[in-house]
C-alpha cells in the first residue's frame, strides 16, 4: 500500500485514538503532578439532633479564592509518586537501614500499598499468562483433531467462560467457595477443619483468583489458536507423517513455527489484560487479601468519601509504564523480526 493511501486510511482511526486515548493520558499525566490546595479550615458550631459541638469545616470562601487562582491545585512535582502510598522512596530507604535481613526488608516493602498491589499484579500475570497460552493451545489442538460433527457445540461450550460477564462469573465462583457454599463446605469436610476459609486466607484467595483468571482467559487464546490451526498447510504435515514423525514432533517442528506470530500476539494481549486485573477482586470481595494496581486506582477514585485525583492519576501513569516495561521484550523481538523480514 502506498504511504499516502495508508495515511488517509489510518487518519480517522488515528484521530479517534488521539482524542479518546492520547489526550486523556496526557491530562492524567498532568493531573498526577498536582495536589489539592492547603485546606483552609475554620472552627464553627455544628448542631444536629444529638446536640451541638464546636467542630471544624473547610472555609469555602478562602478555598474558592485559592481554587480560582490555580484551578489545577498545588504543583507537587513527583511528590505524589514518591509518597508512602506509591513508590515510598523515603520509607524504603528507612527499612533498608532498619532491617537486618533481606527477608525482613522484603516483608516491610511488600507491606506498602503500591508494592503489595504490584506483587499481586505481577504474580497474577506470571501465573495466568503462560497457563492461558498452554491451555488454549491444548484445547485448540484437541478440538482440531475431533470429528467435525460435534465440533460446533464443543467450541461453543469452550468459549462460554469468555461470554459470561466477568463479574457474574466471579460471583458464581465466589458463592460456591463461601464457607457455606458447595466447594467451601466440602473442603471443610474433607480437611476436617471448620475454620478453613478460602476467602480469609491470603494464599488461598490468590490461588482462587488465578484459577478464575485462567478459566476466564483461556477461551480467548483457544479461539485465536484454533483459527490459526486452520491455516496450517497440509502438505508438510503429510510429508512428516510419511517420514515417520510422531504427533509431538509434528506439532513441535511444523505447527508451532507456523503459528508462532499468533502466539506472540496472544501473549501480548493477555499480558496487557492480566496486568489490569480488576473485576475478580470486586467479584470475589477480595479487597482484603488481594489488591491490584487497577484496584488501587478504583479505591482512590470511589472508595473514599474524598476523591484522590492526584493519587489515582499517579497510579494510572505507573500502570501504563508497567505495561510498557512488561511488553518491551516481546515488542523488541517483533520489531527485530520485522526488520530481518524486510
Amino acid at each position: 500500500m502506498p504511504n499516502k493511501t495508508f495515511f488517509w486510511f489510518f487518519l480517522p482511526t488515528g484521530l479517534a485514538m488521539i482524542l479518546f486515548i492520547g489526550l486523556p493520558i496526557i491530562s492524567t499525566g498532568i493531573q498526577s503532578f498536582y495536589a489539592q490546595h492547603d485546606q483552609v479550615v475554620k472552627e464553627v458550631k455544628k448542631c444536629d439532633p444529638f446536640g451541638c459541638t464546636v467542630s471544624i469545616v473547610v472555609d469555602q470562601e478562602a478555598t474558592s479564592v485559592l481554587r480560582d487562582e490555580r484551578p489545577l491545585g498545588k504543583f507537587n512535582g513527583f511528590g505524589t509518586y514518591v509518597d508512602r502510598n506509591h513508590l515510598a522512596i523515603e520509607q524504603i530507604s528507612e527499612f533498608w537501614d532498619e532491617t537486618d535481613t533481606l527477608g525482613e526488608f522484603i516483608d516491610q516493602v511488600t507491606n506498602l500499598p503500591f508494592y503489595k498491589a504490584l506483587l499481586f499484579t505481577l504474580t497474577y500475570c506470571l501465573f495466568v499468562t503462560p497457563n492461558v497460552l498452554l491451555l488454549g493451545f491444548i484445547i485448540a489442538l484437541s478440538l482440531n483433531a475431533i470429528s467435525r460433527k460435534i465440533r460446533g457445540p464443543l467450541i461453543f461450550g469452550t468459549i462460554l467462560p469468555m461470554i459470561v460477564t466477568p463479574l457474574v462469573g466471579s460471583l458464581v465462583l465466589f458463592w460456591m467457595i463461601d464457607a457455606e457454599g458447595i466447594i467451601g463446605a466440602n473442603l471443610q469436610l474433607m480437611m476436617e477443619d471448620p475454620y478453613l476459609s478460602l476467602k480469609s486466607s491470603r494464599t488461598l484467595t490468590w490461588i482462587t483468583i488465578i484459577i478464575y483468571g485462567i478459566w476466564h482467559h483461556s477461551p480467548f487464546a483457544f479461539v485465536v489458536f484454533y483459527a490459526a490451526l486452520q491455516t496450517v498447510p497440509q502438505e508438510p504435515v503429510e510429508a512428516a507423517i510419511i517420514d515417520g514423525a510422531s504427533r509431538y514432533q509434528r506439532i513441535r517442528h511444523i505447527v508451532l513455527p507456523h503459528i508462532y506470530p499468533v502466539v506472540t500476539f496472544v501473549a501480548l494481549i493477555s499480558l496487557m489484560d492480566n496486568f489490569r486485573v480488576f473485576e475478580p477482586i470486586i467479584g470475589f470481595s477480595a479487597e482484603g487479601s488481594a489488591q491490584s494496581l487497577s484496584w488501587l486506582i478504583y479505591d482512590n477514585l470511589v472508595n473514599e468519601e474524598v476523591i484522590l485525583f492526584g493519587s489515582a492519576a499517579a497510579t494510572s501513569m505507573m500502570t501504563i509504564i508497567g505495561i510498557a516495561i512488561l511488553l518491551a521484550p516481546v515488542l523488541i523481538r517483533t520489531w527485530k523480526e520485522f526488520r530481518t523480514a524486510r
Partner: protein
Amino acid sequence: MKKILLTLLFILFGSTAYADGHCSKPSGSINILANDFPALRTFVETAKGCKGSADFKVTHSSEHNKIAVPALTANPSEFSARIAANSSIVPLMNQDLIRPMDDLVKKYGKGIQDSQLITIDGKVMAVAFMANTQHLYYREDVLKELGIPVPKTYEEVVAASEKIRASGKMQHPYAAAYKAGWNLAEEFVNMFIGHGGEFFKAGTAEPSINNAKGVATLNMLKKLASLSNPDYLTHDSEAIKVEWESGKVALMTLWASRSGTLLDDEGDAKITAATKLTGPATVGGGNIPAATLWWDGFTLAKNRSDSDAEASFIALAHAASNKKMVADAADQAVWLVEGFVPGPKSIGVIEAVKMGAKPYPMLPQMGLMHGALGSEIVEFLQGKESAEQALKDVEAAYISKAKEQGFL
C-alpha cells in the same frame, strides 16, 4: 346554601390536606439521590405525594456515595437533592456542593421541628428525618437455653459466644459486618470511640490512633472476628443478615435500620420470634457505647436552579414533617419527625441515645481516616502483623492521603 357548602368542602379538603402534612404544590424538576433501604424508600415515596406539577425522579442506590460528589459537581447538577448522613454530608460540604436552606425552612418548613435542623456555622445545611446506629441483636431462645444473660459489654459478648461455641450449638455464634473497606473501618470507629479514643490530636488533622486505645480496639475486633464465620472479611450487612436468618448466629451487631427486614414475615418464623434487640454494648469498662449515632437527612444541591431547589424542598419537607408516614411506617426507622411513637424495633437507637452514644465524627478529614482504616487493619486480623504495626500503617497511609488533600 352554596356558600355553606363551599365552606364545608373547604374545611373537609383543607383539613385532609393538613392531616397529610403541609404541601404547597411545587413545580419544576425534582431529582433525588438516596441510599437504598426500606425507610428511605418510604420517605421518598411520601415526598412524591407532594410533587405537584413537578417532574419527579429518584435514584436509590447503595453505591450512592460513589455517585454523589461527581454528580453534584456538574453544573447544573444531575440531582436537585441528596439524602445524606453524618459522614456523607462531609464531602459535599468540603467541595461546597450543597446550599443553605434557611429561607426555605422559614417559608415552607412549618411542620419541621427545630431538632431536625442540621446547622453548621448557623446555617441550615440539612434536615434530618431519621436516626440510626449499630446495636446488638440476640437470639433469646439460645441465650435462655444456655443460661446466658443478655450481654451489655463486648467482653460479655465474647464470653457468651465462647459459651455457645463450647456448647456445640453453633460454630460461629457472632456476626458483624467486617467486610474489608468501609464496613470494617466503621466497626473500628465504633470500638475506638467505645474505648474513649479521639481520632485526631485536638484541633488538628494529625492522627492519634496508634496508642493503647487503638491496640485494645484491634484486639477486641480480632477476638470477635475469631468467633465469626471465617469468611468475615467478605461479609457486609446484607450477608450477615442472611447468616442470621439461616439460624447460624446468636449474637450480632447490625444497623438499627435493618431490624425491619429481620423481623418481617419472611424467613423462618421460629428465628424471627426469637430475634430480640437491645442497646449497643460498651467495651473496656467504658460507659459510652461502642457505637456511633447517625442521622439521615436531605440536602439540596448548590449547582441547580433556585426553583428546582424550592420544589425539592417543598416535596421533601412534606415528608420530613409527615405524621401519617411516621405512624404508618413506625417500625421501619427511628423517625425524628414529630408524632413518632417508638416501637419495639427502635430499642437499639433509643438505648444508644440514653447511654450517651457519640455521633459519628463529622470532620472534613474523617473520610480519609475511614478509608485508611478499611484497608490497613486487614492484615492484623489475618494474623500477619502486630496491632502496633497495623496502626502505624493506618497513620502513615492517612498522612500521605491527607498531605495530598492539603489537610496536613
